[in-house]
Structures are given as C-alpha cells and as structure tokens.
C-alpha cells in the first residue's frame, strides 16, 4: 500500500510545517520498535498456527485467524507507565453460529489449554482468552463465529459474563478506517483484502509512511494516556478511532488535520448535552459509548477541550509567546504528550540537522534563516566547530 509524504526532506519554513514534523516524530517514538514488532509477529504467528493446525481440535471448523485493533490499523502507541501492549487476534470458526456462545468459547479455550506453554499463561476474560507473556505484551484471542445473516466480515463473539453473543466486525471496521485514511489522497490504494486462514500481521510499514489519520489516532491516544494517567476506559481507543475517522477531511498537514478533527468533535459534542451514542460505523447496533454516564461524558469532553486548547496554543502563539521561542511552544506540547516524548523528538530533530550539516546540505537563506542548501537563494553553512568552555 503506497502511502504519503514526499516533502519530508525540506527544513520546515513555517510553524505549521515544523509542528507537522514534530508531531510525526512524537508518533514514531511512541510506536513499537522493530524488535518489539518482530516479537509480536512471532507470537502471533505461533498462536495462529497452533489454533489452525490440522491436528487441532478446531480443525473441523476451519478456523480463520486474523489481527484486529491497533496493530491492524497501524495506530499503536507505547502504553503509559508500566502497562503492556495489547495484541488482538480473532479466532473465527465456521459453521458454529447455532451453538450456544459459551460452547464456542470453551472449544477455543480447550485448544489453547492443550498447549502446555500457553496453559500456564492463559487467562479467561469476558470475551477473550488472554496470554500473559513475560515482557511487554499480552495477546488477546477472541473466539468468534461468522454472522451469517449479515455477512461482510460481521462476526458474533461469545460474552462469558452475559452468556450471550456480542456483535462485531473488526475487518469491516479496518476497511472503513483505511477508506477514511484515503480521503482525497489519490495516491493510495486500499488492497487489504483478508484471505486465507492465518493472516500475516500488516508488515511494519516504514514509520515515515503512515497516513495522517493514523498519526491523528496515535496522538489522540497519547494525549488520552497523559490526560487520564493511563486510564483507557473513558476515551476508549475504538471511540477515538471512530471519531477521528469520522471527522477527518483529508488534510495532508498533520497539525491542521488534528486541529480540524478536534474542532469537529468539539462542535458535534457541544450540540449534545446528554450522553451520546457513538455507533460503530460498520455495525450501527454497536454503541462504543455504552459504558458512558453523564460524568464520563463530561470527562471526555474535557479531554477534547484540553487537547484543542494546547494544540492551538502551539499552533497560534501570542506575540509574547512567540518571542519566547522554542521553549515556550514545547511547554504546550509537553503538557499534551509528556515532556519525555517532546525531548526525544527534539533530539531526533537535532540529529537530522546534524546529518544535513555533516553532508553539506545545510544552508541559510536571506535573513539568516536555516534552510536546505538547494533552496533558491541559499548559501551553504560552512563547516565549523563551536568553541568556548
């Protein structure tokens, strides 16, 4: 899938460009490292093969195993504090919708528990089976059956607590999300057709090549983690993803796109005084905000408002703030995303400047503004070494 952003090479010449780059760096720093990704891939692959093996007790149901959630959507963020990454996998059986929901759950549990290694780290949750690996992951396996009446990727999932089926459609949701990502982006192609019994994880798309919408979701999750100190039950990831996807208008500039999404959400919620429903765009019977009460709704609105205010302060500084330079702007950004992320992003920016400097690609334009040496009117910055104590 071909993605965006060929203009990265130039040095930002205005505030908006600088913010776009900085926000992108914050996202990149927040993602799984390549090692962590490989690790996740291995674990996922092993579980998938175990479930779908020919000698598996599930084999007669032709299990289809595929990822869902942030790994699939490309919107992972490093969890807050010491919490772990969530890796989500659907284990979809066939010809099983006539069975009672708990039976399906137990069949999948049975197969997982038949593996000694898995048995030791296996935990039964409300809708999934959790594998608690040592280290920074857990992997949630969701037993499911196809929803034959609805089709197109709709599934039904056993709920152990309520002893009933819950409806979902992770494939459909992903398709919807990637469609939203490609709004007005003529370069992109959505060829994510899922087939086969064990789906590979989306290959680690080089970090630079993500859609603005994926970045927006990452930033919303990161600010959510800061604002709620790691609490994820109010501003659930699926809610943030749905809202971002619904309000994204196709802007290429990350800062402008993020601002526009937050403005859109703010305006929509301002018109709804009581708890709204946030419906699954591919499955309107599912309300993602079904656990919200008025208090939680107000907290969510505060989160959005806090984000908007901080972002706009960074984008549109007062004259006084502007005179205080980078320090002042990064104050707002640190409040939004955490000081560590912002500092790491600055460090990465410095490394890029030095790379240009060392390869003779750094220049100054009229008035002494740092720019690329190939820009019209620029002169190179000659090699130098700063001196002094």
């Amino acid at each position, binding site marked *: 899938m071909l993605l965006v952003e060929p203009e990265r090479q130039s040095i930002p010449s205005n505030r908006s460009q600088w913010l776009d780059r900085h926000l992108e760096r914050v996202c990149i720093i927040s993602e799984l490292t390549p090692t962590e990704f490989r690790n996740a891939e291995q674990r996922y692959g092993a579980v998938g093969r175990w479930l779908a093996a020919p000698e598996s007790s599930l084999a007669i149901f032709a299990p289809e195993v595929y990822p869902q959630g942030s790994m699939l959507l490309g919107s992972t963020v490093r969890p807050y504090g010491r919490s772990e990454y969530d890796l989500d996998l659907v284990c979809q059986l066939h010809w099983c919708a006539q069975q009672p929901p708990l039976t399906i759950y137990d069949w999948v549990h049975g197969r997982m528990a038949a593996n000694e290694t898995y048995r030791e780290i296996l935990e039964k949750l409300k809708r999934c089976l959790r594998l608690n690996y040592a280290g920074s992951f857990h992997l949630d396996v969701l037993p499911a059956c196809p929803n034959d009446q609805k089709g197109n990727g709709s599934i039904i999932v056993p709920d152990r607590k309520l002893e009933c089926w819950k409806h979902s459609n992770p494939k459909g949701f992903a398709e919807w999300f990637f469609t939203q990502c490609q709004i007005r982006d003529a370069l992109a192609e959505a060829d994510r057709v899922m087939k086969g019994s064990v789906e590979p994880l989306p290959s680690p798309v080089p970090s630079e090549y993500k859609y603005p919408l994926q970045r927006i979701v990452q930033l919303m999750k990161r600010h959510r983690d800061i604002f709620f100190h790691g609490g994820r039950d109010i501003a659930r990831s699926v809610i943030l993803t749905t809202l971002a996807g619904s309000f994204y208008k196709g802007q290429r500039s990350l800062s402008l796109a993020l601002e526009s999404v937050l403005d859109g959400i703010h305006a929509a919620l301002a018109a709804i005084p009581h708890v709204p429903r946030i419906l699954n765009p591919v499955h309107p019977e599912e309300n993602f905000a079904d656990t919200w009460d008025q208090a939680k709704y107000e907290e969510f609105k505060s989160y959005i408002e806090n984000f908007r205010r901080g972002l706009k302060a960074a984008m549109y500084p007062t004259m006084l703030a502007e005179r205080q330079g980078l320090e002042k702007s990064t104050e707002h950004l640190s409040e939004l995303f955490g000081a560590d992320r912002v500092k790491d992003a600055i460090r990465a920016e410095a490394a890029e400047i030095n790379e240009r400097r060392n390869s003779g690609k750094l220049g100054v334009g009229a008035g002494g*503004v740092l720019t690329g040496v190939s820009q019209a009117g620029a002169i190179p910055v000659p090699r130098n070494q700063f001196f002094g104590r």
Partner: protein
Amino acid sequence: MRSRNPEFCCDIDGGLLICRGPLKPGPMNATYDVMIRYRAGSWPRVILPGDQIRPLEPGGRIPHTYGPDEPCLFYPSRASWRSDMKLSHTIVPWLSLWLTFYEMWRVTGEWYGGGVSHGKAEELEPAA
C-alpha cells in the same frame, strides 16, 4: 552583508565594523538582536546584548560561550576563519545554527551542536 541580511545596519567607526540586526533562525525560534563586531587584524565577535541568552539555572553556564552574552562560533584559527571571508557567509550562518542548538538546549538540557572546549588558556593564533 546587507545584501543577504537587509535588516542589518552596519557602521564603521575608527577601524571597528559593527553590524547590528535581527536574526530568527527558524519558524519556532525567538528573534534575536545581534551585534557583530569586527576589527581588521582581530577575530569577529558576536554579542547578544541584554539578557537574550540565559543559562538553565541562575549562575549556570551556557555551552560554547565566551561570556554570558557572547557565543563562540568557531575555533580561532586560520583554518576556521580568515579576513577574506564574508561575515554574511560565515558568522551569520554559524550564529543561526548556534541559536538553533541553544534553543534546543534550553528545552532538553543537551547540546547537540558538537564543538570543542578550551579547558586551559591556549595561545590563539593571530588573525590574518
């Protein structure tokens, strides 16, 4: 100097050239009031008058400065700077870069610009 930096004013008084003007290295930086002083036979110096650059804590030092308002932009030797060089093509770009790293240092406490320090009193080569 003025053709590349039109907002600078330069004046010569008794063999001392003083150029003064505003410098904003990038869109996120402050605008600095810069003074470049150059006397033939000596090294150019840059002063940022007033309290424009500040240490991280009171009494602290700013990296790569000769004093509280004077950045060190180059190692004083003929290899770095000669009198046939243009201020606009050396001092101004180096200062822009220095200020960029200075502002980053203010945020993270780390200096990314590299450089050398003089720990002992060294004999500086005379300017040529």
